């Protein structure tokens, strides 16, 4: 049994009259999905390692409303958004970091006009800054020379032009970054966006995640790096479908960094 993580909540810090440097927005997948919870924990360990003062909302956090909005339910989205904004504004939050590109996009772009304006960072951007500042050192050659291909999450890449932070982190691992034929602005969706995660796909010849996994496999990677819990699920399913799970791991960038740091 590992040590329990120390995860301060905004409520507890607020009671002590403290304000953390940043709010870690965990998101629904990061809170409830077994695979994504590992990413959440890896990121928390990195935050501790770097000595970042952070807090989570814990039970006061609620879905950003992204899947409702993309499904067409603007009412439900705005109900979620305004409730969350009220909570965040109540804690006078200035800076938010999240490991989910959907939460990132929604809070960064769609909350301001509803009264919630914060500096919002994706965890790859935040980690990149920690590495640049020397707060995380990335010593140890766990991934030295390994072939890693990076899957651009639509809502991080194309939607918000964050292409380089995750790639720079991978290159700092001394790994060999290999690009898929569709990458950066032309990245192919994993199939989960637009609330597809929560429904059966419409009928067609193939599932989108299989198509994307095939592109990833063409690069003959040892690791498929993702930066989104939903992409992670879709790519993991794709790799299993191709019966490659013994030789190819699907991992979040935060997990790669945490492993290097032996956390």
């Amino acid at each position, binding site marked *: 049994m590992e040590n329990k993580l120390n995860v301060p909540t905004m409520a507890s810090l607020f009671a002590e009259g403290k304000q953390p440097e940043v709010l870690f927005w965990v998101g629904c997948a990061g809170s409830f999905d077994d695979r994504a919870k590992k990413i959440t924990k890896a990121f928390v360990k990195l935050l501790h390692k770097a000595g970042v003062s952070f807090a989570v909302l814990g039970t006061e956090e609620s879905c950003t409303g992204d899947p409702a909005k*993309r499904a067409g339910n*603007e009412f439900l989205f705005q109900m979620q958004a305004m409730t969350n904004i009220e909570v965040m504004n109540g804690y006078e939050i200035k800076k938010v970091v999240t490991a989910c590109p959907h939460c990132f996009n929604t809070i960064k*772009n769609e909350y301001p006009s509803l009264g919630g304006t914060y500096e919002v960072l994706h965890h790859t951007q935040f980690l990149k800054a920690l590495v640049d500042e020397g707060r995380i050192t990335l010593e140890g050659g766990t991934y030295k020379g390994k072939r890693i291909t990076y899957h651009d999450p639509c809502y991080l890449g194309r939607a*918000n032009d964050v292409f380089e932070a995750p790639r720079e982190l991978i290159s700092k691992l001394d790994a060999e970054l290999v690009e898929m034929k569709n990458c950066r602005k032309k990245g192919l969706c994993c199939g989960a966006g*637009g609330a597809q995660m929560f429904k059966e796909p419409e009928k*067609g010849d193939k599932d989108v995640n299989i*198509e994307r996994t095939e592109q990833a496999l063409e690069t003959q990677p040892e690791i498929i790096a993702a930066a989104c819990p939903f992409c992670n699920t879709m790519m993991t399913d794709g790799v299993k479908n191709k019966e490659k799970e013994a030789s190819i791991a699907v991992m979040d960038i935060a997990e790669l960094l945490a492993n290097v740091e032996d956390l």
Partner: protein
Amino acid sequence: MSYLPNIIFAIALVLGIGFFAKNVKKLRRNILLGKDAEVSDNKPQRWRNMARIALGQSKMVVRPVAGLMHIIVYVGFVIINIEVLEIVIDGLLGTHRIFAPLGSVYDFLIGSFEVLAFLVIVAVVVFWIRRNVMRLQRFLKPEMEGWPKKDGNLILYIELVLMFLFLTMNAADFKLQQLGAAGYEQAGAFPISSFIAPLFDGMSISTIILIERSAWWLHILGILAFLNYLYYSKHLHILLAFPNTYYGKLVPQGQMSNVAAVTNEVKLMLDPAADPFATGAENAEEPEKFGASDVQDLNWVQLLNAYTCTECGRCTSECPANQTGKLLSPRKIMMDTRDRLEEVGKNIDANKGVFVPDGKQLLDDYITREELWACTTCNACVEACPVSIDPLSIITEMRRYLVMEQSAAPTDLNNMMGNLENNGAPWPFNQMDRLNWAQES
């Protein structure tokens, strides 16, 4: 009697431009059937986008072969149109090559027009081969059957004919200049048509004049006809690409608009001071319809998008749903929107300026629910469009109608939304368990 050609020319010009102007008016009216759009912000950025994307063709070259060929045809048509200015002046005044006194500048101009005309012919032939011999997949999708396919080829044929007429006219002129025919003074350089001129060897001067005049007339009448073809064709993009890129989305692609009417409602719902028994005012207006089921529910920029689409299919070929065999094709979304808008426009024309409900709408009669629910909102189509069209915004607007007006979401999504309402998460987990991960090893 000697003024007859001038008069015929003036009449042709007035008819050609007048008919076109009439269609432009109709086009404008149809586009303005859409709702208001907030696009008056950040003018400098909008001008820059237009300069870079439309004028500078920056997104065309993402696909280098098609991009380069397109730039040739585009530059060719823009520059060769300087020649049209001379033709129009000559036609009205009865002069011949009125810019000839420009001397070496004129030689340079005519010479470059000819080289461009030749390059346009090459590019058009390549385009035709791509569509009809290589049969590139994106030109063969189901929505391209029938008129769209014919339209695409027809444009290529017209361009080809216009370029040949231009070169024939120059070749005959060059020959007449060599023969010293009256009224054909030495003017211009003919790097391409000088290779055509030998075809006229042995013909009498009057025959060559007949050829020159016929080519001249057919060329300008052809241009006027082509101008009027635009409204009925996907080729409208040569004009609308400019306003369309100007009015294109400026915020991050991932940002979806927030519906203001909903904001007011939600604020009221969350306001603890709101009177729960309040009833609406007696004469309150009927609440606005949420989302879009027909073209009038879309905003005018989305309708402008529809007329701007030139059916190149780059959106569809990048669409993950389409690539995996789903029914959705972003290009079809745009083509359907235009077709329905045209139908609504014709309805208004036929009914003295008022739209009479025809029992049809964009949803179901044109765009099916299966298409709408196949979208992953990944923005690949938006990124791919070389002229800043946003098919995704139409898809999400129609989803809004299905969900908020019709409660017609797929069952899985209704379950997800039910969970979200009850637990604050798309899965059936209790919000109070949200921090349990911190306690798990």
